[in-house]
């Protein structure tokens, strides 16, 4: 239909232009840049895999990659352990719809509240002069402040779990909330214990949400550079920190781009894997 086509073009042309200019072209440039050669103070066009070779060969970078994946993984696990009971409680145990909605909103509000300030607060809590230490001294549990709360990977994982927990919580809640009560009642009716019903009915049906939560949390955590600086201490550099330094002080944009491309690749791989899982194991609750 002609009329339809005109309407379509007038709606789509602006967005297409914008998205090409701010997303597609920049990604392509970043990709191209990763094959350039660095030449102080800038870089020159080239086509070589030297930047990628450095990243794979230099143990300094390999360690960072492994650390990033490890930390992001532990952050996802911790967030899951914290989020699932909360989501389960809200979705399946709170009977009043009003209270349920209020608690849910209260849970996801921190998701949108200043990311920087939330990371910063953990620094004030965990520091050797911080809230936790002074609390323990005040109550007499310890005599002198201990320094092992802050500036290590555990502190980083706690902080990042805190920051990204709502990303885990939201999809899990959504999937638990839409399971009809009768699916679980039918299982109990047929003689399954509550634990069995949970393991064989509730858990499998909430799998898409859990998977989405892991994907979100993992991707977000793997690109964080704030928490490592604030609470991570000396051996906490993650991929994103290396990117900031390559684009900053080190002035090596081609190397920085190569790292970003790898980060982008990791994230896209994780998303595709979870998409694949979700599509094969998709349970349609209508």
């Amino acid at each position, binding site marked *: 239909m002609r009329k339809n086509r005109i309407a*379509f073009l007038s*709606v*789509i042309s*602006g*967005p297409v232009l914008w*998205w090409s200019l*701010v*997303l*597609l*072209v*920049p990604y392509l*440039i*970043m990709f191209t840049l990763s094959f350039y050669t660095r030449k102080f103070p800038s870089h020159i066009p080239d086509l070589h895999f030297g930047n990628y070779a450095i990243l794979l060969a230099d143990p300094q970078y390999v360690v960072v990659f492994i650390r990033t994946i490890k930390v992001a993984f532990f952050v996802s696990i911790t967030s899951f352990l*914290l*989020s699932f*009971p*909360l989501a*389960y*409680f*809200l979705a399946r*145990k709170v009977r009043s719809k009003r209270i349920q909605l209020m*608690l849910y*909103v209260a*849970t*996801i*509000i*921190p998701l*949108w*509240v*200043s*990311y*920087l*300030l*939330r990371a*910063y*607060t*953990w*620094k*004030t809590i965990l*520091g050797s*002069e911080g*809230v936790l230490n*002074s609390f323990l001294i*005040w109550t007499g549990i310890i005599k002198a402040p201990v320094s092992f709360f802050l500036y290590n990977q555990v502190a980083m994982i706690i902080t990042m779990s*805190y920051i990204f*927990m*709502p990303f885990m919580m939201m999809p899990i809640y959504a999937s638990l909330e839409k399971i009809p009560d009768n699916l679980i009642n039918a299982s109990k009716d047929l003689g399954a214990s509550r634990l069995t019903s949970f393991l064989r009915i509730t858990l499998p049906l909430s799998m898409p949400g859990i998977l989405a939560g892991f*994907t979100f949390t993992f*991707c977000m955590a*793997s690109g964080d550079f*704030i928490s490592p600086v604030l609470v991570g201490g000396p051996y906490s550099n993650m991929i*994103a920190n290396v*990117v*900031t330094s390559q*684009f900053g002080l080190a002035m090596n*944009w081609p190397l920085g781009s190569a790292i*970003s491309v790898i*980060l*982008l690749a990791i*994230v896209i791989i994780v998303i595709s894997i979870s998409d694949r899982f979700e599509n094969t194991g998709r349970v349609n609750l209508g």
Partner: protein
Amino acid sequence: MHKKPFDFWNNAVALAAFCAFVFLYLPIVTLILFSFNSNNVTKLPLTGWTLDWYAKALTNSDLLTALWNSIIVAIATVFICLVIGVPTAFALDRFQFPGKNLFRRLVLLPITLPGIITGVSILSFFSMVNIPLSLWTVIVGHGTAFTAIVVTSLFARLQRFDRRLEEASADAGAQPWQTFLYITLPNIRTALIGSGLICFTLSFDEIPVTFFLTGRDNTLPMYIWSVVRRGITPEINAIGTIIIITSIVIIFFSILMINDDSNPKK
């Protein structure tokens, strides 16, 4: 009344949920508490009530400049998000076109990707075409990063929107623009306001993209970042409390708006 027997699992779940909830709010409460504490080190026990940190924060001219910059950036970001996000959501909801799936994935990528990638890629682009960094480049970056929020919430609303309401309007003799103005807009209004508000608060707090795209002007989070990297000062608690309380209020309303179900599709 028959008293229920003690139920171990139910209580365990409730306890775990309670702990998670405390975990979510303890840091926020800490931040607020210490913004009113007179000690200049954030440690217990509390030493006394004061508003000094607020006075200090609100007379710090660097901080106020940064605050003003952030407000400008956030308003401009909301504008971009709506101008681009609304037609994008309409295109995704109402038209079939080749490459639609790819288009959707591309558009939604910035909210799934760490902000740092958006920052780096746009930085590369600007430097290649020799655009100097300024608040404008920050605005473009934020627009790119957050438009997807408007797209997803408006798309969800449009999916629930009963197209027959528009047909009924055309049937009554309304031109397409009249239908949009009188029927469509009132029904998607809350989704637009809600997602716009969220874009505002996110832009106001944004660090990863801003980090790469800002020139000499600091936004508020960049200012705070430069301060907290060096050490802790209760002044940050004070300004943080203001930001957090404001955000909580704004976000509370935007969530209510986005989830507004007064006009569900029947």
